[in-house]
């Protein structure tokens, strides 16, 4: 039995339809990430599952029960908000205990659960502090702790890391992954616009675009066999290069796609000739932006540091089996051409 199941779910705000015909089945204990650009409806979808928004059409099941008209508090879910949503006038302990008091649990049980969650997140020493006396990362832990104490069947995260600085974001990401391992059997649904978070955390990723599901799959499936040009461009960093015009037309398709990490750059020979426009040196990697004579701008990744400089004439060559082909509708045509990647993906 699926932990969360959406059948033909639709959502409109007034006359604006923001989610169209969403069908999705989440397994118990799975870590699912909703990813997509802003305005794609991913947060709305999460809020539908939470019960903070009404469902306009279709049905939502949690543990086999239709919960369309079940109150948020009775759905067996917990949610961690982007802004933490802590009660500013209550200390950390009360923030975590408040919802449990409402659930009529005994004082002893509440205390046990709060201390267990606090121990899990290493916030025991802050229990009598107010939220404003905590750093952003500590507040986020409290928010997660509050969600844990409810012992939910489904854990919902709404962009929980977007208010944290870069270093803290990585730490907290790892912590959330660890938490998922620890809370076995708890389904986690996580919303983000950051594809790195999606790739690193997810068992399966749901890519949303303009209120529709573009693709559902494991991170590597999305990377290797994108179901559309949108997914191909959205997953992977830096993003995939797309080449349009005469060259793909000659091959009978609308666009060619090749990832920067699948390109080799040479000074002497290769497929696309061009001029280096910009070199970004990251230390471990170097990104070389090349203005090609025939195929527009192409970004290539080279490992380590290279001597390329702006103005150099270079040749860029895709590796075997790394070229994705897309038709007019953005759908992939066949698998990537040739090579080891293609053998997996071709028909």
């Amino acid at each position, binding site marked *: 039995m699926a932990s969360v199941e959406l059948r033909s779910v639709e959502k409109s705000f007034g006359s604006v339809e923001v989610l169209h015909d969403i069908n999705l089945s989440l397994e118990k204990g799975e870590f699912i990430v909703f990813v997509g650009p802003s305005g794609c409806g991913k947060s709305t979808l999460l809020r539908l599952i*939470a019960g903070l928004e009404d469902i306009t059409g279709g049905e939502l099941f949690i543990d086999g029960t239709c919960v369309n008209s079940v109150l*948020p*508090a009775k759905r067996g879910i917990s949610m961690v908000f982007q*802004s933490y*949503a802590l*009660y*500013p006038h209550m200390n950390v302990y009360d923030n975590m205990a408040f919802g449990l008091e409402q659930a009529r649990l005994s004082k002893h049980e509440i205390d046990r659960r709060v201390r267990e969650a606090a121990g899990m997140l290493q916030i025991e020493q802050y229990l009598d502090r107010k939220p404003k006396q905590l750093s952003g990362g500590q507040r986020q832990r409290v928010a997660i702790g509050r969600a844990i104490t409810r012992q939910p069947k489904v854990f919902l995260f709404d962009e929980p890391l977007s208010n944290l600085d870069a270093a803290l974001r990585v730490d907290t990401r790892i912590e959330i992954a660890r938490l998922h391992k620890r809370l076995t059997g708890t389904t986690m649904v996580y919303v983000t616009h950051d594809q790195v978070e999606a790739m690193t955390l997810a068992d399966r990723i749901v890519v949303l675009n303009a209120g529709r599901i573009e693709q559902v799959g494991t991170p590597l499936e999305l990377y290797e066999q994108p179901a559309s040009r949108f997914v191909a461009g959205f997953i992977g960093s830096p993003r995939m290069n797309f080449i349009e015009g005469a060259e793909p037309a000659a091959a009978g398709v609308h666009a060619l796609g090749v990832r920067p990490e699948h390109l080799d750059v040479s000074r002497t020979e290769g497929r696309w000739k061009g001029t280096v426009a910009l070199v970004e040196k990251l230390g471990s990697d170097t990104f070389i932006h090349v203005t090609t004579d025939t195929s527009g701008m192409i970004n290539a990744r080279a490992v380590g540091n290279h001597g390329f400089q702006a103005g150099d004439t270079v040749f860029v060559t895709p590796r075997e089996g790394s070229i994705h082909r897309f038709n007019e509708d953005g759908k992939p045509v066949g698998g990537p051409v040739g090579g080891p990647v293609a053998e997996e993906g071709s028909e």
Partner: protein
Amino acid sequence: MASNAGISTLSRQRIVSAWLFLTPMLLVLASVAAYPLIRTIYFGFTDASIDLIAEAQWVGFRNYLEYLDYGDGEGEYFGLLVDADWWRAVWNTLRFTIISVFFETLFGLVIALVLNREFRGRSLVRAAVLIPWAIPTIVSAKMWAWMMHDQFGILNDILLRLHIIAEPVAWTASPDTAMLAVLIVDIWKTTPFMALLILAGLQMVPGDIYEAARLDGVGPVRLFRRVTWPLIMPAVLVAIVFRALDALRVFDIIYVLTPNNERTRTMSVFARENLFDFDKFAYGSAASTLLFLIIALLTISFIWATRMNVEADER
């Protein structure tokens, strides 16, 4: 070298320009606030009368308290501090303040909670609620005086038709209903002000904690008691201070609605009567001084008491 005096040239320049900017305001305040206040306090210690202000003589505390020895072993105390009329005015003012501010806060809170919800036509309702506050007090007091008129007023007419009263009530003239009439008008007029201040406080409460509370399944009463109220209390306390300051000085509404009625005579009305109607300028000045002291004392103690609460809550 520049810092050998302890203050650098730069901060000396800042101090000089700060004083330059402050001086005009200080001069204005001194001439329109400090000078009249000091003059009034001074006249309270003289025998000034309205037409002989220039010849006022210093008489010490006589306006406040004086023992008049009759020479036969008996005597009597005179002065503001033993004046029953004055103390009745003080009591009237306090009663008016406590009752009006209480109901204005209560109704203001309810209206603010309603206005804080999303509903169709909310901005229209918000504007409509403010109308009583926008009407000048003299106008609204006159308006109500007419509605409360014992013979032609609409209030008596409605109540008679509904058989709630058997005969017309002289709302503003009768000693039993005068204070009630004043309270009704003041509460009607000032509730929007409280509603607006409390609404501002409500809008400072972040919306996401209400969503968190929905997930926690917190019911409306408990949500208000445990979440909303603690968060808006500072704003409500400030609103109460503002409103109480106004109510303690109340004058215009009473002067228009129930003139010369000892059941509604407040400190301000008492002071004005003595200053200008009874030709007891010095006595009126003494009353004004006492009025100033009482308001200052009450306000300071209220702020002190509530700040203690606020800080205890902040921990």
